[in-house]
Structures are given as structure tokens and as C-alpha cells.
């Protein structure tokens, strides 16, 4: 899946602020041309990682390559080909949005004037307003227009849509798809799971400064459980003995259980042996996937870790 030259390659990244260990051996690989989701609970280290990628913070240990270069040493060369949208966009009070867009464009690889005009229209942005007169969403639009209109290879977007309304969210998603179609790479940090599901080819989930999961959404789905509820013709066989079955609840002919999605087949076979009258199976949602990763539950983590290594 990974092409020969990944756009971002991070391994064993460590970064501490005083006693806080913000990144504790982070790994991240983003292939050229993909849209990569970057997920994790608040405080997991996403923004810190992005700032290391941008050469704004200096890593304590680990290897960071971005567009084939070291972002700390070759910051300027690398930045020429990157557009960055921070999660919290602050603008200068006495500069208009249009001035900021043009400034950022010129300070990168340049700006496509036609695309700039088009984006301003699509995002319904008034470029003549100044600094603080913009709302949070509109400040983000300024940074987004500047990023999408810039002539760059890699876009790093840190929760770029947290202030956008659903219509603008739609416009944003469309823009990201256009970027992908033009062969650009996007690293998208987001908490909006529908957005991630819609846009991302692959995702990495980090927690407490460590990557806990990385892969395509299909891969990750595989790791979750499917909820099954069935009414059978006769009491079921010994389902508890099957691998990957959890929370089994048998009430006469009725069965409720959770099963690891990759073990679903054996369970269904066992159920059909008892004659299925009705069957409801709920596929895993992305939310469940993330909640399981985000939850700080030792037992859960302990019970899952062998499975994870098994899949890998």
C-alpha cells in the first residue's frame, strides 16, 4: 500500500516538555498521494507531532522525514512544498483576510489566482474583513483558502473544520478530494469521524504519544466486534467456546452476543445449526472503533493487545 517514497515517515519519535512526555515513540507513515487521517483523543500528542513535522519543535529522539527531508534542518525548503492549517487560526487585527491569503501563498510555493477566487466563492468568504472581525469558522476559511490555493505537494490540516458549518464542511470535503485527485498528499487530523470515513484512505490512531493503530479503514473495521442478536429454533450450541465471542447472553432460544468481526463466520455457522428464525447483526461503527481506542481502560487494552499482534 505504501509507495516507494512516503510523504511523511516518522519512527520512534519522542518529545518531552519538562516532565510531560508528549510523544513517546510515535510512528507514522503517510504515503504520497493519500489522504491520511490522524486521530486520537485530546492531549494524545497530535498537534505536537504535527509541529515536529513542521520543524517548529525539535524532536528529542526518533527519525522524522517529510518529503524526503529532515524538517528541523531543512525547514524552509520543506515548507515551500507544504501548506499548514492550524487548529486555532489567529490573524493579525489590521490585515484583511485577502492580504493574509496572499501573504501565505507567496511565502509558500506560490498561489493559483484562479483557484483562489474560486475557493473564496465556494467558501463564501469575505476577504476584505480584518482580523478579529472574523468568526472562528471564517478565520479557518482564510487559512483553508490559502492552503488549497497554494501550489504545494503536502497539506497538513490540524482539525481544520472544527468551526465550519455543515455546508462548509461539504465544501471542505470536496476540496480535499480535489487535492487527492491532483495527486497531493493530505494529513488530516480530525475528531469528526464521518469526515475521516468519507475522506481518508488510511488512518493512524495515537494515544498518549504512541501510535496504537494504523491502516486502512477496512483493516481497522476488521478489528472490531459485530453485535449479533438471533432467535433460534432450538437452544444454541456452546457458543462460549468459539473464539472471539464476548458478552454472550442466552435466554432460552434467544441469543445476544458480540463477536470479533473476523470470527463472525464460525459463530454464524454455529447459529444456523440451531435453525435461525430471525437474525440482526449490527456492523461495527467507526465510533465504536475509536471509542475503544480512546478509552483509557487497562483491561480493555490488555485483552485486545494479543489480537492486535495476531492481525499484524
Amino acid at each position, binding site marked *: 500500500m505504501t509507495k516507494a517514497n512516503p510523504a511523511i515517515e516518522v519512527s520512534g519519535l519522542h518529545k518531552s516538555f519538562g516532565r510531560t512526555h508528549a510523544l513517546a515513540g510515535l510512528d507514522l507513515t503517510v504515503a504520497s498521494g493519500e489522504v491520511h487521517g490522524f486521530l486520537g483523543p485530546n492531549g494524545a500528542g497530535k498537534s505536537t507531532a504535527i509541529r515536529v513535522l513542521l520543524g517548529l519543535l525539535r524532536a528529542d529522539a526518533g527519525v522524522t522525514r517529510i518529503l524526503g527531508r529532515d524538517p528541523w534542518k531543512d525547514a524552509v525548503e520543506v515548507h515551500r512544498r507544504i501548506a499548514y492549517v492550524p487548529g486555532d487560526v489567529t490573524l493579525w487585527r489590521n490585515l484583511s483576510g485577502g492580504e493574509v491569503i496572499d501573504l501565505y501563498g507567496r511565502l509558500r510555493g506560490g498561489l493559483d489566482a484562479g483557484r483562489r477566487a474560486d475557493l473564496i466563492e465556494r467558501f463564501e468568504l469575505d476577504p476584505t474583513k*480584518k482580523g478579529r472581525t472574523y468568526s472562528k469558522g471564517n478565520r479557518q476559511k482564510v487559512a483553508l483558502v490559502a492552503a488549497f490555493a497554494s501550489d504545494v505537494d503536502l497539506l497538513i490540516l490540524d482539525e481544520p473544520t472544527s468551526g465550519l458549518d455543515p455546508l462548509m464542511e461539504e465544501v471542505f470535503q470536496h476540496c480535499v478530494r480535489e487535492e487527492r485527485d491532483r495527486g497531493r498528499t493530505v494529513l488530516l487530523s480530525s475528531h469528526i469521524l464521518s469526515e475521516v470515513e468519507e475522506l481518508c484512505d488510511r488512518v493512524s490512531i495515537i494515544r498518549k504519544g504512541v501510535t496504537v493503530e494504523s491502516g486502512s479503514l477496512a483493516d481497522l473495521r476488521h478489528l472490531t466486534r459485530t453485535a449479533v442478536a438471533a432467535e433460534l429454533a432450538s437452544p444454541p450450541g456452546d457458543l462460549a467456546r468459539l473464539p472471539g465471542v464476548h458478552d454472550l447472553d442466552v435466554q432460552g432460544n434467544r441469543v445476544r452476543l458480540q463477536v470479533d468481526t473476523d470470527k463472525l463466520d464460525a459463530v454464524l455457522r454455529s447459529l444456523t445449526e440451531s435453525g435461525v428464525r430471525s437474525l440482526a447483526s449490527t456492523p461495527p461503527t467507526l465510533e465504536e472503533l475509536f471509542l475503544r481506542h480512546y478509552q483509557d481502560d487497562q483491561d480493555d487494552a490488555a485483552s485486545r493487545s494479543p489480537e492486535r499482534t495476531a492481525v499484524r
Partner: protein
Amino acid sequence: MTAVDNASASTPSSSSSPSPSASGAPSSAFAVRSGGARQLAGTGVLLRFALRRDRVMVPVWVAVTGLMVLSMPNSLRSLYGTAAERADLMRQMTTNSSLRALVGPVFDDSLGALTAWRVGVYAGALAAAMSLLVVIRHTRDEEESGRLEVVASGMVGRRAPLTAALLMAAVANGALGLLVAAGLAGQGAAGALAFGLGIAGVGMVFATTAAVVAQLTESARLARGLTAGVLGAAFVLRAAGDASANEGSSFLTWLSPLGWLENERSFADERWWVLLLFAGAALAQGVVAYGLAGRRDVGMSFLPTRPGPATGRLATAGALAWRLQRGSALGWSIGFFLAGLVYGGLTEGAADLVADNEGARQIFERMGGQSGLTDAFLASMISMLGLIAALYIVSAVLRLHGEETSGRAEPLLANAVGRLRWAAGHLAVAFAGSVWIMLLAGLGFALGYGKEFGPILGACLVQVAGVWVIGGVAVLVHGVAPRAAMAAWGLAGAVLLIGWIGPALDAPQAVLDLSPFGHLPKLPGGDMEWGPVLTLIGLAVALVAAGLAGLRRRDVVMS
């Protein structure tokens, strides 16, 4: 219910744990619809918060200003030991308009009266500066940053933040007034009380001025600049008024709160009614500020922001730095030119007077460093502007810090802008700007004085060496220990104090040597010494280089 509300709001201590009724149902028959206690709910909590936030700045400011005042009787005693000398000084002061313009008229020859005469205007100005910083910091600064929005959404009345800010200023000025009154009581209790109240009064007048200005602009920086401009105008009006009147004060002096302080005649048959002017002005401005504050939206102002261009021409980090700093650079330029013009114009007359008094001449000679009196006067004034230029360079260099902590530097540095290039723009404005404002001051001095263009311009440029060292330290602190960047202000303040009151106190050379300005040749009049000037410039360059090296190696500070 209303009674509870009133009680909880009017006694700050109890409003920290507001009763549930403070959030009262709007439909309540007893509800206060506008004005009244409801608008002040939460003031006590905000005041305590302000006290905590200012727990370093205000005590230091009060202590330094207070000590400056309290050290004066002793230093005056050493200069004018006998009653005859003091009477002599007083007689000369009343006949010389230039020196009167500089330090105001003398009303009595007691040590207390001379102290009030010598430091009154400066102590008042320092109290005013403290007050304007405190008030803007707790009002417009909070609004501009958006922090007030969250506070205002709590159980906080519409006028509570402004009230808390003014109370904070009152606490600070009260402490300063008390310190002065207690410390000078030995010179006469009534005079000491009048003087302490007067200084606090000046502070409160400017606190309320700041409160009005904070309603007018959206930018805290602009609000500070405008209020400082009012303070500068008060300074000039007082000086112009005193220069133009032979007996007493002209109406110009009466336009300035600093003139009121002087005309309160502390230790010289006090005019207590002058205190009513302070109270009246503070009250009037307070009413205006409260009226405006109650009428406008949070975060908005009465000077609306005009729309800007849809496309921009800014193309480099340097151009951006200039764009961000040009406004304040312009303000400093005008101020320095005018100051040069005014003091240049006073030179001739001031020197005449000083020639007659041994003690005063010594002060000027120590400040200015040589015996030609017009030159000594010019030199001391030029070195004073050099000290003030140190404040300019610190503020310009620390723009880097402001850009960084506000989070605006982060996306900028994520572009193809190296850190050095980013810093270079602001440092160019800071370092070249300090040359520029000293040149303008020199131009003003030369025009005001009417001769010696070359030597005066040269003397002003020599000051730049000292200014640059202070700027260099600011760059170093920002580059190496960004969290301590504000300490650069402390350094500039210390240098200002050493240069300002060091000579008057006849401070030991070791203390004067701590300031880079102490090593500069005394110009015009003295001999140009290239050694120390070049050494200081070299030191400044080294400091900047070390600071930039630090900046390249460290993490960008995150907001």
C-alpha cells in the same frame, strides 16, 4: 431577592460565592432591569483575580516609584544643605522660565516642598503609566484576546470587568499614595498627605482616561498608545504652562493633571481643593467610560474597523514586520521629534539658570558630564531620550515574543520562512528604528536650539550604542529563554532609573556603570571616545547573534 443581590454585589467579598438568586429570573417582579447591582455582579471575584495577576508588576512599580520619591529629601539635603542655599535655589527657579518648564515652579524652600517640586511630575507620570497599563490590561486586553468573553458569560455583570479594573488601579494608587504619605510624614504630615493623595489622584485620572479609551478602540496596543499620548500631552501642557507664566501657573498648566499635582502646593500651604479636580476628572471620565461600556457589544468598539483590501501586496516576512510595527514606529518618531524640539528650545534659558547654582550645576554636569552648561544641559536631555529609546527597542524586539505567544508566528513559520528571516524583519524595525528616532530627536534638538546641528546629531547617534545593547539583551532573552522575555522590560526600566535619578542621588560609579549608557561619552561638549561606543556596539552585535542562535535551536513557543 433584590436585597440579596445588592448585598452580594456591593460587598466584593461575599460576591465570590454568589447566591443562586444573583442569576435571578428575569420575570421576577423585583428584578433590576438595568443599572444597579446586577451590572456589578462578580466584581469581587474579578478584583481578586486582578490582584493575583498583578501581584508582581504593581508592587514593584509602587516600590520603585515610592523609593524614588522617598530618597529625594536626603539627596536634596546633600545638594542644598542650608536654608540659605535652598532659598537661593527657589529665587532662581522662579525667575527662569526654561528650568521652570523642565521641573515646574518652587513654592517653598523646605525639603518637603523641594521634594514635591523635584519629583512630583515624574512620580505623577509614573503613577499615571502604571494606572493606564493596569486598566487596559484588565479591560481591552482581556477583550481583545477573547478571554473576557468566557468571563462575561459567567455570573458577571456588564460593568463588572471595568469596575474591577478601576478598583485594581485604585488599590495600586492607594498603596503608592500611602507609601509616599507615610514616608514623607517627617517633612510635615499635611504636606505628605496632600502629596500622596495628589500622586494617587493623577494615577486615578489616567486610570479613568484609560477606561474611556479602552471603550473606543479594539486594539489594546492602540489603547495603550493613545492613553500614553494623553499622558505625553499632559506633560507638555504642564511644561508649556510653567514656562509661559512668571507668577503661578498659566491656564495651560491647569489643563494638565500633572499641573494640578504641582499646584496642589504640597508642603507649601497646601491647596486641598485641588484634590477636587482629581476627583471630579476621575468621576467624569468614569461616568463616560461606564456609559460607553454599557452601550457597546463585548469585543467591539466605537471606532469601527474599516474593511481592508481583498488582495494583498505583502510578500515577505520583512514586509509583514514593517506593516505590523509601522504604526507604533510613527508614534515614536513624532514623539521623539517633538521632545527634541521642546527641550532644544529650552536649552539656552535653562543653562543660564543652572550656571548660578553650584548644586544644580553639579547634577547637570554629572548627567551631561562636562562643564559647558548649554552642552551639559543638551547632553543630559539627549541621554534621557536615549534611555527612553531603550523602551522603544524593547517593545519592538518583543513583538517577536507577542507574535509567537499569540500563535500567529506558528503558521507563518510553517511557510517557507526561516526563523532568522522572520526575526530579521522585526529586528530591522527595532534596531534601525532606534537610529531613526534618535536622528529625529537630534533634528528636533538642533532646530529647537538653532545651532550646533552636527554635534547634536552626533550626540544623539552615540546614544544608539547604549540602546542597541538593551535591544541585544531583549533579543537574547527572547531567543534563549522565551518564557522570561518580559524581563527585558525590567532591564529597560532599571537602566532608565539608573540614568534618570542616579546622578541626582549622586549614586556610586559602580551603580552607574551597570547601565550601558553610563559608558557613553558625554556629548555634545565632551570628547568623542570611540572605544566604549564601539565596544558597546560590538556587545550588542554579540548579544543579537547569541539570541538568534538560541532562537534557531529552540522550540517555537506554542499558544
